């Protein structure tokens, strides 16, 4: 996956360092009942007021009640635990900067093919969505349009630094909202940065994988597949959609997996989809075995009575079907008894190098174990395997 969000805490550390401003925010991580802080709360001043914000890349935090303003130092812990109960674990604590709403501006930078697209508006904060027509934009060159200076009153040097910062850190998107500009000073209140995860190798003394915001809480199988993918040359992904779904998918190829998921949805069985995911880029036997095992583990946890497994994919260019199916069959063999007990049927459609050998192997295995739904090469249209699989679901339901 290419564009990922940094924690706001890390984003600000990096940017403030570049702009030579001191950053005094504190990061907090909730672990059960315990809260770990990046620096002791005793360092904070009792005379000041603080903002406590969820720091997990959630959009529209304010509207969703994931930000607490005007918090006294002594209330920070209890406020964090209260919000954490909604399913969040990472927070950032910052001093409140008193200002008028009219001083709130919007400023963002985005990488586009032509360069860096700058968007700005003198109306920022939570109202930027309402005043979309006032947002102006231009692709950054050496000098700035004068209208921008009027709108934001920021020094040109600032933009030069921002551009350097953007390039040095392989940033894809950077949004400051609100940006508070008063007569003599300016403050970055909320900052969101998306970086290009594929660039982790190229950035030095900057962000690393641990600074990337995790999505919402992941299932055990999702975590296992992510771990597997991180260590592999091939691409492996897995998203749990409905833990109690009846249709489980072992798909290969970005485009083919979408086509199959679309067909399930088109036939009205979208809600029955247990998972979405795909493997591609010629994973080896061991990787395919592990990936299949995780899909089967998630599938066997489903409470649905009738379960089907779709092993689907297009006609591969270079993924070896014989090798990948060896891994698939190894996993099926391991979970054979549980699969049999649940009377699971397997539906296969796949093509590519060594497809005859691969298909013959999986077909023989399914027949031997009484799990044969249908096995076909490219002579069956890609989406048609879904129709065959779902018709068996219908039969058993009626």
């Amino acid at each position, binding site marked *: 996956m290419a564009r990922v969000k940094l924690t706001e805490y890390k984003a600000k550390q990096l940017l403030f360092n570049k702009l030579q401003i001191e950053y005094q925010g504190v990061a907090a991580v909730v672990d059960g009942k315990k809260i770990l802080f990046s620096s002791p709360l005793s360092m904070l001043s009792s005379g000041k007021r603080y903002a406590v914000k969820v720091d997990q890349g959630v959009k529209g935090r304010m509207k969703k009640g994931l930000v607490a303003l005007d918090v006294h130092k002594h209330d920070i812990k209890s406020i964090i635990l209260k919000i954490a109960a909604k399913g969040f674990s990472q927070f950032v604590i910052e001093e409140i900067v008193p200002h008028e709403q009219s001083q709130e501006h919007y400023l963002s930078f985005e990488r586009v093919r032509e360069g860096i697209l700058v968007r700005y508006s003198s109306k920022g904060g939570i109202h930027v969505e309402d005043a979309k027509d006032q947002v102006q934009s231009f692709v950054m060159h050496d000098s700035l349009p004068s209208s921008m200076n009027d709108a934001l009153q920021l020094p040109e040097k600032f933009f030069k630094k921002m551009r350097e910062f953007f390039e040095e850190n392989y940033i894809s998107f950077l949004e400051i909202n609100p940006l508070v500009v008063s007569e003599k000073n300016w403050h970055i209140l909320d900052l969101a940065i998306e970086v290009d995860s594929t660039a982790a190798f190229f950035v030095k003394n900057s962000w690393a994988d641990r600074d990337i915001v995790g999505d919402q809480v992941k299932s055990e199988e999702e975590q296992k597949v992510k771990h597997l993918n991180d260590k592999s040359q091939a691409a492996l992904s897995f998203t749990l959609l409905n833990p109690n779904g009846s249709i489980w998918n072992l798909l290969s190829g970005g485009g083919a997996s979408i086509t199959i998921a679309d067909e399930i949805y088109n036939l009205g069985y979208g809600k029955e989809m247990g998972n979405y995911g795909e493997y591609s880029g010629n994973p080896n036997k061991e990787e395919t075995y592990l990936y299949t095992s995780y899909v089967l583990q998630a599938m066997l946890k489903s409470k649905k009575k009738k379960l089907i497994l779709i092993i689907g994919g297009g006609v591969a260019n*270079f993924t070896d079907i014989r090798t990948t199916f060896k891994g698939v069959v190894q996993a099926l063999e391991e979970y054979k008894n549980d699969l049999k007990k649940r009377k699971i049927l397997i539906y296969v459609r796949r093509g590519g190098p060594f497809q005859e050998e691969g298909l013959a192997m999986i077909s023989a295995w399914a027949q031997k174990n009484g799990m044969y739904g249908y096995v076909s090469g490219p*002579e069956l249209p890609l989406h048609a395997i879904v129709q065959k699989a779902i018709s068996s679901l219908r039969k058993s339901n009626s």
Partner: protein
Amino acid sequence: MLDISTLRKTNQSIIALGSHPGILQSMLDFDFLAGKSEPDLKGIVASGRKYVRLFWGDKEKRIPVYSSLDMIPNSVKTSVTLFLNLTSGRRTMSSTLEALKEFPRLKGGSLFAENMPEKHSIEIFQKLNTQQFIVGPSSVGLLIPGYLKLGAIGGTQAKQLVHAHLFERGNVAVFSSSGGMTNELINLVTGAGKRISFSLSFGGDRFPVLTPMEAFRAAEKDKSTEYIVYFGELGGYDEYDLIDLIQKKHVTKKIIAYIGGTVSAMFEIPPQFGHAKAMASRGEETAQAKTAALKKAGVSAAGSFTEFIDLVKDISSTDGPQKDHGGSAEMLGKIQSRTASWFINSVSRDKDGSVEIVGEDLLSLATKRSYGYIVGTMLLGKQLKSQETADFIDFVMKLLVDHGPYVSGAVNTMITARAGKDLVSSLVAGLLTIGPRFGGAINQAANHWIEGVTQNITPYDYVESIAKKRELISGIGHKKYRIDAPDPRVRAILAFTKNLKHSPHTDFARDIEKITTAKKGNLILNVDGAIAAVLLDLLSQKEDFTERELQDLVDSEFFNAFFILSRSVGFTAHYLDQKRSDEGLFRLSPQEVGWAE
């Protein structure tokens, strides 16, 4: 700019950056099945060995491997028109920019790696000139049936290529971000009895170097193409750009499209589907919105994959079935029956019962040519071009035959013979003595002279640099002969450069001698140094060896071969001589071995 008809018209020369034997082999298979006389792939830039063995039909062919781009000979560099970048995402940008700089006739390339930073894609995009194109990153490549296969596209098994009719020109262009779907669609189209005009996958990244719009423009320009079959995905605005092209009449050919990702509508926060680009954050980016907009613009945009297949089946093949360009059962049979050799050799073979040496009958060589000619030809693995080189090798082989019974190798041979051992044991005992101090100086001297010529260093500085390391210069110095009492053999050796226009290695060796003899009278150019220098000059002037090829010869110890071969005669003579005189076992007395106090 991608121009398919130009690519069809001219022959391509391809360099692979990085190696992926399966993909490269499939490109050779494609070329073989298309009936080309030789593969488009001219070399591979990768670490490891000097060649990769790939099959050309049922025969094996060695494809040269270069450790870096500047190791590629100029004659190859200037012929390269396409590259296939198979390096990892980390290396893709730097190697691509290097390729753009190094290949003056470059028309385009394809990037295979996934996980290349988007900033790098943009940087490559900006460096291209208007005549060039690059597909990818994370692309399976570009395919023009019967003409070009640049990448894994179409499959990596020869059978796949034949079954998908990739040797017949058709009227349907096939595009997709997804490599897998590209091949799926190729099979869908050809399975329905239609044929492909060309196909490519953009790759699923946010900023593909070759944009979908450029592909559509290329299809519009290509006379063979009448239909475009396109598989798009949710996310991004490519389809709106396409609608713009259609409305401006820049694209007028019939388009059949399917936009994947309708399933996304089911989710409040949809998961990441498929590729990096396939994230629909706004309403216009959903599959449903894009399908509707395309329909409105007159595109046959299918609402489901079933409908999509029906639309593809309705395509008319205007020209009727095309004549086969290649991909015959006989050719495929050759590919499927091949087995890898255990060894590859280019020196000699048995042909119709007689021995052939580097392509010539041995008996005829033995009758017409000197021994020196045959030795030189065999050691170099190619027929000598000049009489001068043959004559010189012949001379050297005679000159090195012996140096009296006193030298280490001869002594060992004699001792072994006197111990009652056989011919081979005695000869080998002598040969095993050859090394850095005895007989191995020619190769080291050749290394000095090559360094001097290629490094552009003054002879004085060179001597100083060796002296600083407290080493001796091989090929310099003699026990007996001095500057005022020169070695007559050296004079005879150097005479062979008389008719050469240039003799840089010999000149350098003699300049070195001037400096060393000024220090000490016996530091003259000796037989080893002179042979190395003259042989280098002959190989470069008369046999067209480059300095790099000469260095390869040094690295394989070529220059010591003459001493070993020739001196074997000497050792054998000393063995036979000892047997003749029937001397007993040799033993040293205690007086003859000192005691180290």
